[in-house]
């Protein structure tokens, strides 16, 4: 019975090619929209997440405002924090805006970041040419700096800045490295302070220049497999002791939980977009219902005949149901193919990875089948309730 119904549906669809095509168009568009949206949005999300993961994953940030007695963190605190199990390294971040001299020209209000070797080890791939600040630079307070590629272009248009010398606060600094160009996102700390970083020097040098006694901001890098809760707890214990148990003296930001929040938001956004796209499926479903009602009316005689030959109301219902599902699933299939193509083209155009998920394909199929069931059931019930004599007389 099932097989015959499917064959019969196929014949009817083939017989009314144009009409069938127009009927499934709504479903095709709906499913294609859902697939393309899910895929493209997921691609963008993956892309963003990848960048954030690179910079922010496995990172804790301490912003210490300090107490009247102790206005920030110092090297002893860094030593204590460094020894916590699960922490692989600590990158201090101090920042100051200063004027720069080069070749008799003053560049005012340039952002200077104080960093250490650990930061440059972690983000080694940021260096485009030259090298980063290393451990000797930090220990010996060498007058070396790394500059951004924008700043390089400002100072030495068309030239390589490495090994050139600039003056920061009246002291000569040798440029040892230049950052890559397309790296807009810098590190979580600068990302959050929204500064344009132009120059990086060993952090102790910057503290000397500015006369700062303490470090306000630290990035703690944790091991991938470390128990984040325990690490966080231990860090808090150390900080509480350092700041004499005044717990409003510092803020501890767990990047991983921030990332989690971000990911949750992304999924909600994605769900919302899919929800909006699903509205078009409802429209498609109404198209199918309309077509099925027309079909029932057109085939009144056929229904009457089938009943005269002994078809149970259930069989008639099943047949029209299968036809509706067949139509909508066919639409779903075409929609998945078209949606996949759109995703492929769009991903290439935006320059992201194609993130076509099997779950999206399943969702497309599931949605279209559901539409067939929901919108096919009323016409199918109508067909099954037709009175055979009325149906046969309508010849």
């Amino acid at each position, binding site marked *: 019975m099932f097989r015959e119904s499917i064959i019969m549906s196929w*014949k009817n669809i083939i017989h009314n090619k144009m009409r069938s095509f127009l009927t499934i168009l709504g479903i095709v568009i709906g499913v294609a929209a859902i697939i393309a949206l899910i895929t493209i949005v997921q691609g963008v999300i993956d892309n963003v997440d990848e960048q954030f993961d690179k910079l922010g994953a496995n990172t804790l940030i301490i912003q210490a405002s300090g107490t009247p007695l102790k206005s920030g963190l110092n090297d002893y605190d860094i030593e204590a924090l460094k020894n916590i199990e699960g922490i692989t390294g600590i990158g201090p971040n101090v920042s100051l805006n200063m004027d720069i001299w080069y070749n008799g020209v003053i560049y005012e209000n340039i952002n200077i970041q104080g960093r250490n070797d650990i930061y440059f080890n972690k983000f080694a791939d940021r260096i485009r040419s030259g090298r980063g600040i290393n451990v000797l630079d930090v220990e010996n307070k060498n007058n070396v700096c790394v500059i951004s590629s924008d700043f390089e272009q400002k100072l030495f248009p068309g030239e390589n800045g490495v090994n050139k010398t600039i003056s920061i606060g009246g002291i000569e600094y040798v440029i040892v490295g230049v950052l890559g160009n397309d790296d807009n996102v810098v590190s979580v700390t600068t990302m959050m302070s929204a500064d344009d970083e132009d120059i990086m020097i060993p952090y102790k040098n910057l503290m000397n220049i500015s006369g700062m006694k303490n470090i306000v901001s630290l990035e703690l890098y944790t091991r991938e497999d470390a128990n984040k809760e325990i690490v966080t707890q231990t860090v808090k214990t150390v900080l509480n002791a350092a700041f004499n148990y005044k717990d409003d003296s510092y803020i501890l930001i767990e990047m991983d939980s921030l990332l989690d929040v971000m990911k949750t938001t992304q999924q909600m956004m994605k769900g919302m977009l899919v929800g909006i796209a699903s509205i078009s499926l409802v429209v498609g479903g109404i198209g199918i219902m309309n077509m099925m009602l027309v079909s029932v009316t057109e085939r009144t005689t056929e229904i009457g005949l089938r009943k005269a030959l002994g078809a149970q109301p259930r069989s008639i219902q099943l047949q029209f149901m299968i036809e509706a599902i067949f139509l909508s699933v066919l639409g779903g299939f075409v929609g998945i193919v078209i949606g996949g193509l759109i995703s492929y083209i769009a991903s290439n155009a935006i320059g992201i990875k194609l993130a076509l998920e099997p779950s999206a394909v399943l969702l497309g199929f599931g949605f279209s089948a559901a539409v067939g069931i929901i919108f096919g059931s009323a016409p199918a019930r109508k067909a099954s309730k037709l009175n055979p004599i009325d149906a046969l007389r309508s010849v």
Partner: protein
Amino acid sequence: MKKEILVMKDIVKVYHMGDEEQQILKHINFNVWENEFVSILGPSGSGKSTMMNIIGCLDVQTSGDYLLSGQNVSELNEVELARIRNKEIGFVFQQFQLLPRLSALENVELPLIYSKVPPRKRKEMAENILEKVGLKDKMKHYPNQLSGGQQQRVAIGRAIVTQPTILLADEPTGALDQKTGHQVMDLFKDLHKEGRTIIMITHDEEIAKNAQRIVRLLDGNLSEEVKTDV
């Protein structure tokens, strides 16, 4: 003594046309025995199709009793009625009523699908029947590739493929020319000789004479039976 297959007692059928009541069948008493070939003869509008619909379990009488193979049809529900139509009745219509998108073979298979005969068996049965009605070489043809007479023979094949208790034909030659009409009648007579019970409805005196027995329907009244010498 032969078995009584069909017993109609005091059958009345009333149609409501707005406020007006119209009695189409007026206290009909009618019996059919096993292996009979009966014609119901009457002019257009006399109530023949109404009677056939009741016999074929497509409609129910307003009052009276109708027993088919000993079962009181008015006591049956929708599902049981469908089963009766499938197993006990084989319909032949004036307009053939073949499904245009199915081949001759598939049309004949149709009632077997509803009696859940497995596909291979179904095909075999349908092929045998088509051979029997002389359409062995037309099995794959679609209705629009067949003549009227051929289409009616496919329809007859479809009606008998389930081995029904009664073959019920409503004006089976009504849409055919005289020659093909006669061929169809010859087929009916052959089927009768093989032991089938046939009830044929017609307005044509000549066609009616092909049957063993003729009953006349006039304005909803069934008149006494006329024996033919077939």
